């Protein structure tokens, strides 16, 4: 027995063996999505109208806040560091509300994704919506899929040039409008619009418009599905977000296979065939250019247009809708097991009476109860908890704030009578849009007297007039007479109160004294 005979050959192959090697870079194959008709397409038109409407129109909504604040309903005022959303005004120190909103958006995305997959990607993502809009323009000027493919191949002619130019012009208009709408969120929209058109707006406005115009034009017109596949991180997170009970756009192999382009002939020949007539309608409409029949893929944004395309084909050949449908992996697996039976290959006789009749009972269908599961409940509870907490916090928050900074140098000052004085910088924020008068006093320091340079103090209380929506900085002097200035430090409060509004803001403060009476 030779050595060679005693060694087993392992079943292994180099990953880069000659047969597997291909070029590292593959050029993009241009996708020409065909127009789809159906329930999901209608839903997407509605969502497109609503989302675009919200985006373009929101800055123009007015909301009266009185004479001291802007009347724009939604405004990010970067210059004065205020964020307005209808009746809510947020100061920079309240930015956690925005963080809370972002957390809610994140959890909401998790919830929706675990229930129905990439709903965000397929219906509401700006990339999807604007690509859809750009495709409308493309179809208007160049026709549907086949005409566009032909036009692409055709040499440059006057006709092609006209169509292309018109398409690009309208795209550019949309892109400018998109970039233009963005800046109106950051300044008074009517004023800024006038300035923009009379060339008097700030350079940053034009630069922002130019950048967003360029990104809209390029991402919506040319990059398209590459944004989803190569640029966006969200598709990579999908796999962690989906589980067996999540609804996703699914090609139901168990009733589609074996597919056949010649169903009648095959049936006549006694072969069993599935519902899929291999018409490629689902591939033609796909804006991502994939074949859903290959199974769930990273590129799929679950826009559901293949469902519409397939359902209309099923109508033509007189079969039930739902060869491609929203289905869960659990249901799919159950039905696949039934379809495979014992043989291992899909056999239509396992799912249909006589192989061609109606679908058999016992197949799994979507059950809304599957939506209620620990995972979705946890997301929902967390999401609502943050929402409720933020709403409560917003409803009860103070609109009068004080902050106190003790002078650091010197910590205390000895007065000629032997008393001790401390100085504080007190900032009083009037977070309302009305001027108001608050009374500033101290609490918890018996015997102390206060003084505010340049202001009148009556009965150890100073009335401070606060301008609307501003912070007033005050210098507060607190003095203790020699007999009271004992010990090292005393805690007390600085109190600002507005009797009319019933608001009081207290800040803890410390009165510092020399370690020992070193006279």
């Amino acid at each position, binding site marked *: 027995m030779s050595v060679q005979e005693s060694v087993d050959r392992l079943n292994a192959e180099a990953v880069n063996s*000659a047969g597997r*090697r291909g*070029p590292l870079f593959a050029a993009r194959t241009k996708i020409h999505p065909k127009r789809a008709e159906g329930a999901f397409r209608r839903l997407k038109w509605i969502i497109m109208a609503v989302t675009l409407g919200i985006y373009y129109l929101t800055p123009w909504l007015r909301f009266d806040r009185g004479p001291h604040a802007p009347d724009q309903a939604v405004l990010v005022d970067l210059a004065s560091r205020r964020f307005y959303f209808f009746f809510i005004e947020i100061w920079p120190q309240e930015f956690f509300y925005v963080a809370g909103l972002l957390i809610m958006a994140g959890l909401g995305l998790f919830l929706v994704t675990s229930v129905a997959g990439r709903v965000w990607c397929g219906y509401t993502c700006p990339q999807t919506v604007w690509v859809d809009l750009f495709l409308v323009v493309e179809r208007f000027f160049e026709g549907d899929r086949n005409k566009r493919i032909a036009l692409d191949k055709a040499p440059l002619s006057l006709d092609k040039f006209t169509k292309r130019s018109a398409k690009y012009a309208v795209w550019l208009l949309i892109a400018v409008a998109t970039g233009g709408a963005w800046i109106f969120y950051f300044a008074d929209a009517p004023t800024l619009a006038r300035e923009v058109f009379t060339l008097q707006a700030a350079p940053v406005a034009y630069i922002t418009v130019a950048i967003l115009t360029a990104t809209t034009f390029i991402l919506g017109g040319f990059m398209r599905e590459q944004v989803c596949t190569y640029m966006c991180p969200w598709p990579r997170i999908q796999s962690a977000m989906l589980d067996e009970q999540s609804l996703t756009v699914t090609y139901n192999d168990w009733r589609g296979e074996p597919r056949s382009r010649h169903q009648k002939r095959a049936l006549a020949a006694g072969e069993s065939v599935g519902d899929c007539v291999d018409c490629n309608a689902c591939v033609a409409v796909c804006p991502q250019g994939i074949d859903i029949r290959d199974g769930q893929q990273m590129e799929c944004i679950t826009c559901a247009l293949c469902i519409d395309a397939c359902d209309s084909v099923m109508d033509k050949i007189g079969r039930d809708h739902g060869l491609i449908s929203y289905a869960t992996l659990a249901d799919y697996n159950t039905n696949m097991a039934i379809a495979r039976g014992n043989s291992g290959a899909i056999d239509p006789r396992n799912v249909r009476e006589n192989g061609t009749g109606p679908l058999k009972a016992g197949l799994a269908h979507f059950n809304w109860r599957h939506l209620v599961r620990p995972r979705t409940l946890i997301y929902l509870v967390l999401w609502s908890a943050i929402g409720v907490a933020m709403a409560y916090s917003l409803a009860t928050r103070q609109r009068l704030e004080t902050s106190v900074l003790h*002078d*650091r*140098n*010197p910590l205390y*000052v*000895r*007065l*000629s*009578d*032997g008393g001790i*004085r401390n*100085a504080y910088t007190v900032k009083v924020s009037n977070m309302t849009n009305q001027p108001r008068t608050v009374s500033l006093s101290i609490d918890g320091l018996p015997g102390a007297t206060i*003084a505010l*340079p*340049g202001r009148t103090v009556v009965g150890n209380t100073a009335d401070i007039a606060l301008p609307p929506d501003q912070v007033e900085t005050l*210098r507060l*002097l607190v003095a203790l007479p*020699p007999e009271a200035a004992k010990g090292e430090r005393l805690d007390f409060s600085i109190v600002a109160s507005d009797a009319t509004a019933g608001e009081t803001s207290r800040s803890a403060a410390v009165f510092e004294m020399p370690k020992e009476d070193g*006279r």
Partner: protein
Amino acid sequence: MADREIDELTGTPTTGHTWDGIKELDTPMPRWWLWTFYATILFALVYVILYPAIPLVSRATNGVLGWSSRDAVRTEIATAQAAQTAYRDQIANASMDQIIANPELLQFATRAGRSAFLVNCVQCHGSGAQGSVGYPNLQDDDWLWGGSPEQIRTTIAHGIRSEDPATHMSVMPAFGHDGILKQDQIVNVSAYVMTLSGLTPRFGVTSEGATVFADNCASCHGVDGGGKQDVGAPSLKDAIWLRSPDQNAIIAQINNPKMGVMPAWEPRLGPVAVKELAAYVYSLGGGTATAASQ
């Protein structure tokens, strides 16, 4: 380079370099990348022509636009100063009491005064105006030459024992050094001075010190030791000591006094800055409302 080897698999020429059998493909750069590269070169050329760029021995080339960062700063400062002119003009024409009474003007003057203070005054008076031994604390309510806004302004403008003709000027005699008082008289008066502010002297006869005080010191420091701001004589009966409450230090001061000196600031900073400084010092909290006697 005559026969470039073409890689079989990709159809791309190789560079001809081989390392251990590994060859390098000579893949052309994407066209857009190349254009971007040329664009950056063009940008650099234009930049070098327009802006200061190439370092020479003492300075760089000027550039066609003549832009310089110094000019930019100068313009910014000029703009800022132009914006402040309205306030400075008001301050120039207002009395100290008018400045104090006008909240907007007071705020501007106080802030401007603070920046001037941080440049010119902190060396002696400390960054918090808290002073140190021999340099008065400007936060407290004890004033050598008066604590009203106008008195503070006068003191800053003309200085103390400075070369300014209108300066505050006074001299405490060197009672020991010049032999005006005997040593035991000095010790006794130091004991008396300590009792004025409630301190307990370690040595000396207080009652005899009182007599010495009345004869030699009361003319400037007041009969009760309360000081006299007209001559910058400190109050001896309050809790604040410019130097030290230690008896030896008091004796040393009577023997051969040290007297503070402050330059006149108006010739250096101008009347407006002096008013701003006065407003800042006044705002620290120790100032008195009027030039009342103290």
